[in-house]
């Protein structure tokens, strides 16, 4: 079986995000980029399945420009066998559905039997793409999975469903699984992997290569339009209480109850 891992590059989690001059996006000029952390869990799970000889090959699927190649190389260095970069001028302005269409087409083209993706990307936090990919392909899906087992043509997935309840979902392959934190510990790239990744070619597929109608993706096919970006309101300043400890505790409790209304 071939596992496809959807991988997105995002600004590093400790980045300070600035809105660009036009107010229509993020100023990426001095942002350090990294692999979306949830995608790292997806990649690691795929690599573990390959190590266990359950999967034959792991292929990375990335929608992005040439600036995303470094992230793809990182994934190859960790042990992914192949990668394709999905890039076309027609892809610009895609919403989640457009991205899902591109990824679904790439997965089909590569003969993928299981798609692993992060449960969300930490830049826009939409959590939409994996579910949309599954829907477009007509495959079963489980989201926010922190444990996965495969057995022949079926899978068993564990997920937190809130309130301390844990769901166990079984289904058949092919399927789409989105990964949560706790699923595994992503490995580091070994030097051997780094040097092997150097020699790998990363093909670029455009809309035509994927058999996609350009009108179904990008700005042309988008059902969601971003109107404006703005900074969140500044956080009000904190207050420091003074005086004797017993009176400060009383004051603190009063403030938490009456003003902050958290008690």
């Amino acid at each position, binding site marked *: 079986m071939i596992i496809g891992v959807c991988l997105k590059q995002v600004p590093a989690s400790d980045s300070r995000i600035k809105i660009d001059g036009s107010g229509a996006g993020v100023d990426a000029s001095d942002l350090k980029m990294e692999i979306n952390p949830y995608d790292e869990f997806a990649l690691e799970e795929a690599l573990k399945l390959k190590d266990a000889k359950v999967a034959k090959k792991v292929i990375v699927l990335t929608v992005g420009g040439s600036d995303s190649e*470094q992230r793809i*190389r*990182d994934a190859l*260095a960790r042990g992914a066998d192949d990668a394709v970069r999905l890039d076309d001028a027609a892809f610009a302005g895609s919403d989640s559905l457009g991205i899902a269409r591109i990824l679904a087409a790439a997965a089909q083209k590569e003969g993928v039997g299981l798609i692993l993706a992060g449960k969300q990307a930490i830049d826009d936090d939409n959590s939409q793409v994996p579910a949309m990919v599954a829907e477009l392909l007509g495959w079963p899906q489980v989201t926010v999975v922190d444990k996965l087992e495969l057995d022949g043509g079926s899978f068993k997935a564990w997920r937190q469903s809130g309130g301390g309840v844990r769901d166990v979902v079984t289904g058949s392959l092919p399927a789409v699984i989105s990964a949560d934190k706790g699923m595994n510990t992503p490995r*580091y*790239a*070994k*030097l*051997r992997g*780094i*040097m092997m*990744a*150097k020699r790998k070619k990363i093909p670029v597929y455009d809309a035509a290569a994927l058999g996609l109608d350009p009108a179904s993706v990008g700005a042309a096919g988008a059902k969601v339009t971003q109107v404006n970006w703005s900074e969140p309101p500044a956080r009000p300043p904190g207050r420091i209480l003074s005086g004797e400890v017993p009176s400060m505790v009383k004051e603190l409790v009063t403030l938490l109850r009456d003003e902050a209304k958290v008690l």
Partner: protein
Amino acid sequence: MEWTDEHRMLRETVTKFVENEINPFVDEWEEAGIFPAHELFKKAGELGLLGLTKPEEYGGSGLDYSYSVAAAEELGRCTVGGIPMAMGVQSDMATPALARFGSDELRAEFLAPTIAGDKVVCLGVSEAVAGSDVARIQTKAVSDGDDYIINGSKLWITNGMQADWMCALVNTSEGHPHMNKSLVVIPMDTPGVVRARKLNKLGMRSSDTAEIYFDEVRIPKRFLIGDEGGGFFMQMLQFQEERLWAGANVLRGLERAIELTIEQTRGRKAFGKSILDNQVVHYRLAELSTEIEALRALVYRATEEYIRGENVTMLASMVKLKSGRLAREVADSCLQYWGGMGFMWETEIARMYRDTRLISIGGGADEVMLSIICKLMGTLPEKKKKRS
């Protein structure tokens, strides 16, 4: 210096290794005065970090020295000096001679498991009577059939309490002190090898440092690295890599000292303004940052020449000299601006002040570096001939 995507990925792997496998445990290891070398080196070995420039037949990656410099630089992200130093001994200080001059048999037996992280190595050069003056060492290896019998001692041996083998410099004959020395492999479990004590040091406390005695230690002659009598020369070559490595390793720590000091002095108020707002402070930090960049440029230049196969004795000595001096200057200046907090044992700046002090002493003291540079400049006064 041309940094490729492979260098970048290596840097990222080393950075993650430091953040996850070293920094969280640093306080514990500093307190214990030792760290789990076998466990940590095994992890580093699995990632390929201990044999970047070593031959591929023995598990290395056969890369040029820029990769060691990149790794050493990122290893400088450790919040302590002792662990990178210990790793540097394993990867770049005790193994270059074996990798280059050792027999295939010896390399298979000792180099391969050291690169893999299965064996821990230490470098035995210094003795109580001879530190930077390497030619004066007294430890003797006397030929006895197919064996050497070794007697003597070694002092200030990094990794000495945990090492499985030592790359030791010993006298194998009488005669000119530059021609009578050899490098040998001494397995530390050989009868007669005594790890006398773990030394109590000012800094680098998480790294174990030993005093070691050799009492009639018998090793086979096949444990000789390269030619008998070539030890001094090989150790001098080995020092080149050690000095470049040390220069690269110091950079990030110094940058971190500046960053921590900016943070600390920005938050601390005195006489109506932050400490950082005093021109003497922010100008000083700007000047030191400039010096760090200048040192980086020197390290990169020396590395480039070394990769091209040039003799970099002068540049590597300059790297070593400047690293030690600048590290002391940065640590001291930063600690000063931390005030009372800087004098507290547990602060990172105090640890840096203690740890960096060694750089001007270990691997050849500043004064030895100056002598080497003077010698190459032709300004060293000639030794007076003894009157007969």
